[in-house]
């Protein structure tokens, strides 16, 4: 195998985390940095405009991971044979420079402030017996006050709009009164309010809740970020989530981080480069916490497999490949659910999402909007409401969103009275209600269970013959009971919005790959305050290999109801600071 000249740093994956780390190292250190990205260079703004094509970019997922190259397998429990997810539907990871950050919806809420100590807080308030059977809930090893400054800093870099509800402990009317105390107001005001958002706002207010505008990483005014990059305000074109922003109002890694990276001669990005292994330095002893990795092997753009030596490796792919590459490379102790041993692969979580479909008299013009146009309530978030008499823990947010609807996806929703899904009666009803369907949605936490985890699939392989990662995942009673509790509330909100007829959300059944849920999948290589509970320490540094960092939502011990990117970026920045300020001066464990 060809051995390339050594570099100081290899970053695996050129999405939000990889490029943020590359930018920080490029700006703040003289280190030579190579980013290895399996996909292509980012699409130009002109190409993104050509991408305003629902068939190609939503139905055919043209900008997302190509399943013919690599996918994951799924089973609900160890008694079932796993099958490959042959076409991605329920989650849509990206590929190419910018990764999923090029097609995200850009929702940018922070996590609930008690999420980071969920185990301790729950036990403290309700006792240990309140924790659901089979749970794997644990604290993150950091607290709100440690992460808050990083949330604030990243909001100024990424460019985030919203309305504070808790400024240094002072509750602000019109914001989220249940959020953790913020050090600063959002850098930009909330976006414009679409019709459905006003209906949700008024309905929520009437029911005694506390509505507030959603926060998102989309400009609502022309905005100059903390690095001096200027991007324009949103045009509310409706092609937001699943599409790239063709005017640059939505933050992408390619329009927020790449312009800075391109000026750094010490950083290079190699596209078409698929990493197969991270190599261990066998002369070191991982048991004694001083193991070492020495670089990576990858298939380059010409198809040749090469060895790239490096002193420091950042694994920044996505939740699945972060865990998979560690498993394939033998870096960590694979999780064994029957013995409860090992940490690598544990705490796989997704996210609960259900919506009511209300049928209204008046049209919404729902082709307009985007990631900024939404109204939320946190009244049923986390532990905001008392669970003493309830048979579940935690909760989630409710919202009325105008994200921009396109007809291949949106056509065909009809009242329950219409039984057929084709033919004249269905067509007539679907046309009649096309622009008059809407309602409140619920996005809920998915707590970690011992039974939900990742390992290597024994049967199915990728194009190089390497095992795919296998997801063992199902919904459990806590999600079922939580959603059963939320359904009447979502229906009540939808009715208060003015719906004449409502199809309530379905109850939680078996985990399915056939319906888009969210692209928020977490866990596998989780952070923890001690090495027996997670692969990483709270600086996202491998407990056994201090020159290996693993960045991304793969480090989340469990999922909050909030979209993960704000937390991913905050903790990546925290890692970057620790590496630059401490690790480079004295390489070794940061804790």
């Amino acid at each position, binding site marked *: 195998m060809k051995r390339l000249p050594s570099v100081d740093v290899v970053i695996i994956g050129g999405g939000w985390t990889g490029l943020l780390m590359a930018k920080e190292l490029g700006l703040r250190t003289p280190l030579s940095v190579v980013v290895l990205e399996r996909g292509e260079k980012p699409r130009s703004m*002109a190409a993104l*405009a*050509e991408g*305003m*094509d*629902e*068939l*190609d970019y939503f*139905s*055919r*997922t*043209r900008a997302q991971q*190509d*399943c*013919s190259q690599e996918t994951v397998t*799924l089973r*609900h429990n160890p008694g079932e*044979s796993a*099958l*490959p*997810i*042959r*076409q991605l*539907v329920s989650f849509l990871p990206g590929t190419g420079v910018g990764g999923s950050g090029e097609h995200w919806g850009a929702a940018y809420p922070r996590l609930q402030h008690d999420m980071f100590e969920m185990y301790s807080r729950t036990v403290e308030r309700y006792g240990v017996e309140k924790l659901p059977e089979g749970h794997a809930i644990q604290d993150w090893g950091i607290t709100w006050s440690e992460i808050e400054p990083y949330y604030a800093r990243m909001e100024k870099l990424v460019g985030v709009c919203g309305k504070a509800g808790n400024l240094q402990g002072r509750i602000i009317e019109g914001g989220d009164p249940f959020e953790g105390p913020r050090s600063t107001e959002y850098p930009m005001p909330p976006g*414009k309010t*679409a*019709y459905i958002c*006003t209906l949700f706002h008024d309905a929520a207010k009437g029911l005694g809740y506390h509505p507030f505008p959603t926060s998102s990483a989309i400009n609502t005014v022309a905005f100059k970020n903390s690095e001096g990059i200027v991007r324009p305000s*949103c*045009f*509310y*074109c*409706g092609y937001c989530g699943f599409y790239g922003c063709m*005017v640059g109002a939505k933050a992408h890694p390619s329009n927020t981080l790449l312009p800075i990276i391109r000026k750094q001669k010490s950083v290079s990005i190699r596209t078409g480069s698929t990493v197969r292994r991270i190599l261990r330095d066998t002369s070191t002893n991982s048991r004694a916490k001083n193991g070492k990795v020495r670089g990576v092997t990858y298939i380059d753009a010409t198809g040749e497999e090469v060895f790239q030596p490096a002193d420091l490796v950042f694994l920044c792919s996505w939740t699945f490949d972060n865990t998979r590459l560690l498993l394939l490379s033998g870096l960590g102790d694979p999780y064994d659910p029957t013995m409860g041993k090992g940490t690598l692969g544990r705490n796989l979580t997704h996210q609960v999402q259900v919506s009511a479909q209300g049928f209204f008299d*008046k*049209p919404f*013009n729902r*082709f307009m*909007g985007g990631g900024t*146009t939404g109204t939320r309530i946190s009244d049923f978030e986390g532990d905001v409401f008392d669970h003493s008499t309830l048979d579940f823990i935690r909760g989630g947010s409710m919202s009325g969103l105008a994200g921009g609807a*396109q*007809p*291949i996806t949106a*056509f065909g929703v009809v009242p329950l009275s219409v039984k057929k*899904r*084709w*033919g*004249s009666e269905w*067509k*007539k009803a679907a*046309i009649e209600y*096309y*622009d008059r369907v809407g309602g409140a949605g619920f996005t809920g936490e998915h707590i970690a269970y011992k039974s939900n985890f990742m390992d290597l699939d024994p*049967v199915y*392989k990728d194009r190089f013959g390497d095992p795919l990662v296998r997801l063992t995942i199902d919904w459990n009673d806590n999600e079922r009971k939580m959603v059963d509790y939320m359904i009447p509330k979502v229906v009540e909100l939808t009715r208060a919005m003015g719906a004449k007829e409502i199809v309530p959300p379905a109850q939680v059944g*078996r*985990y*399915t*790959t*056939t319906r888009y849920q969210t692209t928020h999948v977490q866990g596998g290589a989780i952070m923890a305050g001690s090495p027996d509970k997670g692969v990483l320490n709270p600086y996202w540094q491998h407990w056994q290999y201090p020159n290996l960092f693993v960045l991304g939502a793969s480090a989340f011990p469990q999922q909050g109801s909030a979209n993960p990117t704000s937390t991913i970026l905050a903790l990546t920045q925290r890692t970057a600071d620790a590496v630059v300020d401490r690790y480079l001066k004295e390489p070794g464990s940061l804790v």
Partner: protein
Amino acid sequence: MKRRQFLVLTGASIGGTIVYSLDRRLSLLSAQEKPQTIRIPLRFLTENEALSLTAAVGRIFPSDESGPGAKEAGVTIFIDRQLAGPWGRDAHRYTHGPFNENAPPEFGYQGKATPREIYRAGLKELAGFDQLTPEEQDKKLEQIEKTPFFALLHKNTIEGMFCDPLHGGNVDMVGWQLVGFPGPRMSYAEDVDKHFGEAFRPKPMSLSELLPGRKLHPSEEGQ
């Protein structure tokens, strides 16, 4: 080499509407005028398959008093191009075995057959479908309602109704006009917080109108 097949339609058979030919030239056909025919070259389907398919998608999304349907939108042409392109041969699906055709629905389609194979077999079952009465056609479709073929047919019919005209369906944006969707437009900054409770219906615009002179690359023409 396979002899090139054409879908031959008479003006009367499609009720006086507009169809898109493969070179994206609009042809206006009117039932009122003297009968004329149009020959649309097919990329994957045979003429007989195309006729059965046209009849089938016409029952799923009929042309009736609530507006034009799959026939006017050119859904057959859309599906023919999709099948001829990379999607038709599963270029981006994970196609390694073993396959489990009897997998529970949560796993999605787990079969080995590609869309091309599914359509070829499904349309064989529907041979002569265009000769049946509408009632007989519906009965036949009800019999296959649970099959992967019907699932694809249904999904592709909706796609062909509402895709950008670039892909051969939604001819003259008839699908978009049916539901009041204006297509890709650059800005609603002045409208998003107005028109509350009232239908705001800008004139639809296709991608090639939005980006005049730009060479577009629909996925069906790629690898």
